[in-house]
């Protein structure tokens, strides 16, 4: 019933999701071909692609904030099974977050990857993965989602093994095996859903409204498939291997964004395949909750014992994804707000941390935490960003980590489960125990030795940029680090508003 301009507007808005998915994918061969000609062109085009993708996604903002949803089918393979596109607030949340962090990581890559080999492979894969990841978020049914999910998982294998060391190859193999297992489980789950409901579309409301044995198996398989990606206990084993060996911008994306696809998938499963009543009446939420709690505690506890910086961060990611899994299973609106907001928070925090760790490794070659004493005085911006993000992880107000912890905890209390609050607080303390020593050693460690040399009685924590990484590396991580601050304190908190809207949207049935 749209007339004139409005119709045209709708048309354009409908084309954007398709565009942002296909644009990076189509740019991949272009980048690959150009990389043979000139490195500069290749780098420029990669960044340009990421930037255009981000702004294309961002242009949906006014449309999505009106609470509108678009869904259409591109073509059908079987009746009720086809490739469909869908925009709603939840997919927008994840898409805008992903494309933003991707843009930052791509810019960061420019200098980080300079001394590395295989750049002609790295950039096309990076951009292709962006397209595939956005495809997951803009998929209108589980079949399309599955296709893009597998595409992303498999292509990002190339990012994991980029360094081609034996450790990287081993980790990559583990990643690949787990991915395939997860993919198979997911496939079974989707088939089972199709069998039960006759459709796997996201626009049909609740697909499976009665618990049955097959439905339970489907649920468990969804949990395996998406939980594997999200690093859920006991399927997390690939994560601490794969994330540290990848190049740091790729680790930032793996940990910051790609883990979230698992969480996104679980959200869709919990609110579109099943619904609160089904899951709660059958007590399936208990399964997820127990696994999430173990994930939180395990991730934090193991992170304490790791002394490789990136491995510690990877285990921290496991713990943080436990928050997200716990948040969605609370089934309160507040909890869901906290959950989606924590997806934002963790993406910002963890990508900052990984980028900062990457800058340290790039500049000094140090990976062991015990060697990092005094690094903060040499690289003040890098460690400054790291500190903000780490304090956000601990949940120090007014950073975004505090806000997500706050909303999650209130959600848990609303659900009448104060034990989860205790878990969150214990985990925060553990986060403190493994992040604080890094920060302290970086800024205040090793000073005695320096002064023992007698030079510079009054050397202060002044800014000395000689030890700092290049601007192209520092600026993205500082932006992300400041994001942790702005998205925590400031009143026009886009992430929080989006989370709020998305949570309300999901609670109203997600149509």
């Amino acid at each position: 019933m749209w007339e004139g301009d409005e119709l045209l507007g709708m048309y354009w808005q409908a084309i954007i999701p398709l565009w942002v998915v296909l644009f990076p994918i189509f740019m991949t061969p272009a980048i690959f071909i150009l990389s043979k000609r000139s490195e500069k062109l290749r780098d420029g085009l990669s960044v340009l692609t990421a930037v255009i993708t981000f702004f294309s996604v961002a242009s949906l903002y006014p449309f999505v904030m009106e609470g509108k949803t678009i869904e259409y089918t591109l073509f059908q393979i079987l009746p009720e099974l086809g490739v469909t596109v869908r925009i709603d607030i939840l997919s927008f949340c994840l898409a805008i977050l992903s494309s933003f962090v991707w843009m930052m990581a791509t810019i960061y890559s420019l200098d980080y990857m300079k001394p590395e080999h295989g750049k002609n492979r790295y950039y096309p894969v990076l951009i292709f993965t962006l397209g595939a990841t956005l495809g997951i978020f803009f998929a209108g049914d589980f079949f399309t989602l599955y296709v893009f999910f597998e595409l992303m998982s498999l292509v990002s294998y190339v990012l994991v093994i980029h360094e081609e060391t034996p450790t990287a190859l081993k980790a990559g193999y583990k990643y690949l095996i787990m991915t395939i297992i997860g993919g198979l489980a997911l496939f079974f789950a989707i088939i089972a859903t199709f069998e039960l409901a006759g459709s796997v579309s996201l626009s049909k409301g609740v697909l499976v409204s009665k618990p049955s044995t097959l439905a339970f198996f489907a649920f468990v398989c969804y949990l395996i498939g998406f939980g594997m990606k999200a690093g859920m206990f006991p399927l997390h084993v690939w994560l601490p291997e794969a994330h540290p060996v990848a190049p740091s911008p790729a680790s930032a994306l793996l940990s910051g964004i790609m883990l979230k696809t698992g969480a996104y998938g679980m959200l869709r499963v919990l609110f579109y395949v099943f619904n609160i009543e089904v899951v709660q009446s059958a007590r399936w939420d208990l399964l997820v909750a127990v696994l999430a709690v173990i994930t939180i505690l395990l991730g934090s506890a193991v992170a304490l014992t790791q002394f490789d910086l990136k491995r510690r961060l990877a285990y921290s990611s496991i713990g943080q994804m436990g928050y997200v899994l716990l948040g969605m299973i609370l089934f309160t609106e507040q909890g869901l707000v906290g959950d989606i907001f924590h997806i934002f928070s963790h993406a910002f925090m963890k990508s900052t941390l990984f980028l900062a760790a990457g800058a340290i490794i790039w500049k000094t070659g140090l990976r062991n935490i015990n060697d990092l004493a005094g690094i903060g005085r040499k690289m003040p911006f890098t460690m400054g960003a790291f500190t903000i993000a780490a304090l956000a992880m601990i949940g120090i107000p007014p950073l975004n980590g505090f806000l997500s912890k706050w909303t999650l905890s209130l959600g848990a209390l609303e659900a009448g489960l104060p034990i989860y609050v205790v878990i969150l607080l214990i985990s925060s303390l553990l986060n403190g125990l493994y992040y604080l020593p890094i920060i302290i050693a970086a800024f205040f460690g090793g000073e005695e030795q320096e002064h023992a040399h007698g030079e510079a009685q009054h050397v202060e924590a002044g800014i000395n940029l000689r030890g700092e990484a290049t601007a192209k590396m520092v600026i993205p991580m500082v932006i992300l680090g400041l994001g942790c601050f702005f998205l925590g304190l400031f009143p026009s908190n886009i992430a929080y508003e989006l989370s709020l809207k998305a949570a309300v949207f999901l609670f109203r049935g997600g149509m």
Partner: protein
Amino acid sequence: MNLAAVTAGETARIYHIWPVILPLIPLAGGILVFALGRLSKRIYPLLSFLVTLVTLLSTAGLYPLVKQGDLYCQLPKFMAVGLSFRVDLLSFIFALLVSLAWCVVTLFSLPYMRQEKYSLTYFVFLLFTLAGNLGVMVTGDWVTFFLFFELMTVASYVLVIQNRTDEAMHAGMYTLVLGIAGGLVLLGGVFLLHSLAGHVQISPMMLALQGVPAWSLATILICFMVGFGIKAGMIPLHVWMPRAYGASPAIVNAFSSGAMVKAGIYGIIRIVLLVFTPADMAAKEAFHFAASAGYVIIWLGLITMVFGALMALLQNHAMRLLSYSSISQMGYIIVAIGSAAYLFGLEEAMGFSGAVFHAINHTLYKVSFFLIFAIIFYHTGEYRLDRLGGLWRKFPLLMVFFLLSFGAISGLPLLNGYASKTLIHDALLEAHHYYHTFDIYLAERLFVLGSAFTFCYYAKLFYCTFLGPLPEKYNVNYHTSFLMYLPLALLAAGIILLGIWPNIFIENYLLPAASQFQFYRGGIEHLTGFHFFSEAPLNASATIFLLAVLLALIGFRFRFFWWKPPANLSVEKIVLQPVVSFLYRMLTHLGPKTDNAINSFYYKIASDFLALCRVVGQMDSSLDSFYENSSRKAYQIVEKSRNLEDSLVDAYDRSSKGAYQLIERGQLVDESLNEAYDLSSMKAYRLMEKSRQLDESLNSAYESSGRAAKNIYDKTAKMDNALNMAYERSGKAAKELIVPGKDSTQTSKRKSKVSSSFKINPMEWNIKNLNFDTLLLAIMLGIVFFVLFFFR
């Protein structure tokens, strides 16, 4: 003024942005100092002092406004949940106290920090910590409170590790982790409060919490008490204090003891005396919870007070002694808060005023103690009491300040400590007066004992520092900056003024602050014109001093104060360390173990699966080899059969050859036969010719003889007929006897022979013969051709 008429509800609320600005001044100042610090080394200490001075003045400048009513300001969307600020009189008193302490100590730092390293870091984080500390006092809800509380915890860490020694780093880490842990427990309490009451405003909540089970309220209270107790050094949560104080410079401890610890006290006052009260005085039963909590808090305070004092007695390190002293003094304040809660609806104003007043007094004299020792350390580099002594000769002025503070802390009349101690003591007496229980009486006695101990350990500190022989190496001339004495003089002025005219302060500041709480108005009225220097409190003070002098004499005489308790005999070593290390070890062992277990489980599955695959592979290969074997066998069989076939073919060949030969031979035979036949036929022909000739001759003979014979024939024909008839008859008879067969044919042949011999027809007979032969030959030839044709 009719105080009873004033209730909290009637307090005016004034919207004002200033409470927000207040903590932002030092925050911005810190950033400014950091930015300018790199430019010049001279400016930033002075700049820092100016920032603290501005903070102090702007805090003080709020007084006219605060007098009119609560200042409040809300930033609704900040931090998504909204921040709110509020300054009432109590907030104002504490904010002023904090900024005063900060300003004075920063002034002192100017000369002191000249010889210290890391002074820029020190000044920057000093301002950040001030922002946190001040922020805590001016917030209107617990979330904002927590925000500043954490800022203070994190920023003060940098002050604690000012020395950067290993000891300092460890102590700092210990403090930071405990601080964050305490903060998280506090946060847990805030969560609970929010979920039960629906909001986290720092305001009376008992009405909103009505119907909530007591254990939930107790959980909230415990969470808050743990969070604040860690900050305030409440036993058994005090463990960080001696460690941190022992490892950091005296000026940092002055901040900590003078101002930061008060944040914990302020929090306890707010949660116990405000949050757990109803907004309406009429709801008497809603006070029960606070009253029973108050009883517990009194005892917590007493334990803190007495144990802190006892531990202080045994210290050899001036900073550690002062840290235990601070713990002990916090015990006084907690006792006062507890008794105020215990006396809800009766005389709670007494305890409240005692607590707030004592907090102020403690800041005044404790900061001067720390500054005195900062000066001593500045010159001697020593905190250990056994290495100090006789310093009165070198620092006579310092000794005067020390004695003043000593008198104040041990409760000498006309000094400020006396007034607040009297209030707290009276609060305990009132409690005993109203409830008449033995335990409160005991509490009051313990309070006296604790006060006596306070005197004793300061006597020890004084003796060890200023009296006795002066160590040789300290016998030099010291020059102490005027700037170092100025803060001490200011503090001393405060001690004396508050000591001589306590009533002015109480009536003008404390009682209006108390009237903003839900306190019994009568109690507040009792305090107006309180007789501090009447007989009863002076008597109590005298008792304390007598007891104290007695104890001190005994202690000095028998050197009890120099007894070193075994290192393992402390709360930290006995309780906290094992528990914490157990938990830590459990987590750090259990976590990786689980992780490894899962990993190895997967590997086990994978390797089992691989083994299975190997078995299948072996099966596969054995199947393969079976197929191979069988195919080989089959091949062999095929080969054998081919051999067989070959031999068969051979045999066939041979047989066919044989047959051919046979045929050939047969042919030969045949040809010879043919020849023979030809020959024989020719012979036969000849024979036939001859026989024809013979025949012809015979014929003619016969013809001639025929005629003759015809006669005979005719005759014989007749006979024959007769014979025929006879034979026929006999034949009939024989036919009956003989079955048709050979015999009969033979018989018939014989008969035909007989007949042919009788009916001789040579022509007929020849042809007949010939035909039969040809037929035989043809058949034979045909067979031969057939055979030839076939096996060729």
